[in-house]
């Protein structure tokens, strides 16, 4: 299976299907289970939040969904592709083309300018450096950072850095956006604006956005919420059902 094969996308299509996934980490002679028989789905056109207390397995679930971490058992399908049947190299290629990342600490390379940081996913796909920068500049204009293209990350506020991170996640038009605690490094107001921007620019009918968070102030942006506890998904429902419960 090649990462370049056509993906199953479109409104209401299941983008991510996690089935009975178990993941453990060795801990001396024993093993610590981070995920226990987890089953979970996320659909195209929706912003799905994985919520729960610290240590419940949210980040591990995110890692196995994007293929940066292997699993002990179960299966994971992303846009119809089963990650377990791909080689490590194919998973890397799939991730490069189809997954956009927004990290908790942004992970913007401090020695690169804003536009250079944003162009990285395109350069990784073999784009010409100049064309990649032009495309990156366009998307940065869209998020209101057109005047800061040549600034370095440390010259930006936290909110601006988050906008750069969002731009970097979207620049290569991926089908799956993975966000790890996107508001953890931001104050309430800036975090709210960041989620507004994410919802506005990332959510599309053929795209799936998965956000891991324990920040209940941003739950309102979700279309679907999966709640985790002790390595299991204990509740998975629409955001409105979650708020009423």
């Amino acid at each position: 299976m090649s990462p370049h094969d056509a993906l199953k996308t479109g409104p209401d299509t299941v983008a991510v299907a996690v089935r009975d996934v178990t993941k453990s980490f060795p801990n001396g002679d024993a093993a610590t289970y981070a995920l226990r028989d987890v089953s979970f789905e996320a659909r195209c056109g929706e912003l799905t939040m994985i919520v729960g207390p610290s240590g419940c397995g949210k980040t591990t679930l995110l890692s196995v969904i994007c293929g940066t971490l292997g699993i002990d058992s179960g299966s994971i399908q992303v846009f119809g592709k089963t990650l377990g049947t791909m080689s490590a190299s194919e998973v890397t290629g799939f991730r490069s083309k189809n997954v956009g990342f927004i990290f908790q600490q942004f992970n913007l390379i401090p020695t690169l300018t804003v536009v250079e940081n944003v162009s990285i996913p395109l350069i990784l796909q073999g784009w010409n450096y100049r064309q990649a920068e032009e495309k990156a500049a366009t998307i940065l204009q869209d998020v209101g950072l057109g005047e800061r293209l040549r600034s370095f990350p440390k010259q930006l506020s936290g909110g601006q850095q988050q906008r750069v991170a969002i731009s970097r996640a979207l620049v290569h038009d991926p089908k799956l956006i993975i966000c790890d605690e996107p508001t953890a490094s931001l104050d309430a107001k800036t975090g709210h604006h960041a989620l507004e921007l994410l919802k506005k620019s990332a959510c599309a009918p053929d795209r799936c956005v998965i956000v891991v968070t324990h920040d209940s102030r941003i739950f309102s942006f979700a279309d679907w919420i999966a709640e985790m506890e002790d390595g299991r998904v204990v509740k998975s429902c629409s955001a409105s059902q979650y708020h009423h419960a």
Partner: protein
Amino acid sequence: MLRIALLMLFRDKAKYMMLIVGLTFCSLLMTQQASVFCGLMLWTSATVRNIGAKVWVFDAKVEQVNEVIPLREIEVTRVRGVAGVEWAVPLYVGIEQARLSDGSFQNVQLVGLDTATFVGRPMEITKGRIEDLRLPDAVIIDQVGVDKFHKKGITIDIGTTFEINDKTARVVALCHANRSFLGQPYVYTTYDRALQFAKPQRKMMSCVLAEPKPGVTATELAVRISRLPGLQAYERDDLFWDTIWWYIKNTGIPISFGTVVLMGVIVGIAIAGQTFYLFILDNLRYLAALKAMGARMPILAAMVFLQSFSVGFVGFGLGVGLTSIFGYKVLKTEQPPFFMPWQVPVFVAVIIILICCFSAAIGLRQIAKLEPAVVFK
């Protein structure tokens, strides 16, 4: 991604400068010391280069050109009798004491040339004529002698006189000669006059210089002459290298210079290796992010090697450049000895490449162990 790699390196100014300084220092130390070593070794064989004869015949016990065991003059005739000899002439080489007009002394390397042919004459006469060497008491002195006497307040020019072992010597010409290992000036005169200047011994001739007939190689002729009992003949290049190897094997010079070169290597590995490792550690979370975003290991390896080799290239260039400036300055004064053959920069380049590979490898080891999932922690 290679451009990104270079930007990451160049813009981390503190570490970039540290890497450049470390590798420049390492490269400078190795190139400069190796060049001084080569220059010193060249000094040891200065007589071979100054005289320039194709075949040299010594007493069989002689191992290098600066070691003189006098021969009987009859040996010239024996050498002439060997098949393939075009001509053979005697040569006197010895360290003698010159007394200056103010009473001070200066050791000189006295060279007595065959009176008829002047075989072994100075390669470059800077003032005067070689033919004047046939005049009474005539000597030719090299520029080192002119400079040394000048430092003692005596100006040497044509017509200047001084004494060699209490016998008057009169300068008839000035020349340029390669500097000797011990730095004594070369003083040229005729063979017969050299024997008069030198302290008398039962045997006086230092060696026989010979020329092979057309069709006979110098090596072949040296082999034939060496069959004569009590004589050992050398082809010019063999004598040159045997002299250098004698000093390498029998003196502490290579160990002394080798230690400094080794220190250069250690300093290079320590500074460059450690700084580059810290550079990789500082960027580890970003490299993990690149891995998560789909950068494959070969791309990351290429980035790291490019970063390492680019600082290596700059450091090497600066080191060799600074050494060349040093060499340019000292060549004017000929002290310390300096000779940078192409092998020296090549050797240093290989060492720098190894240091860069080592630095990149220890950084890559960290990256290889890196799970892309750590970016979520």
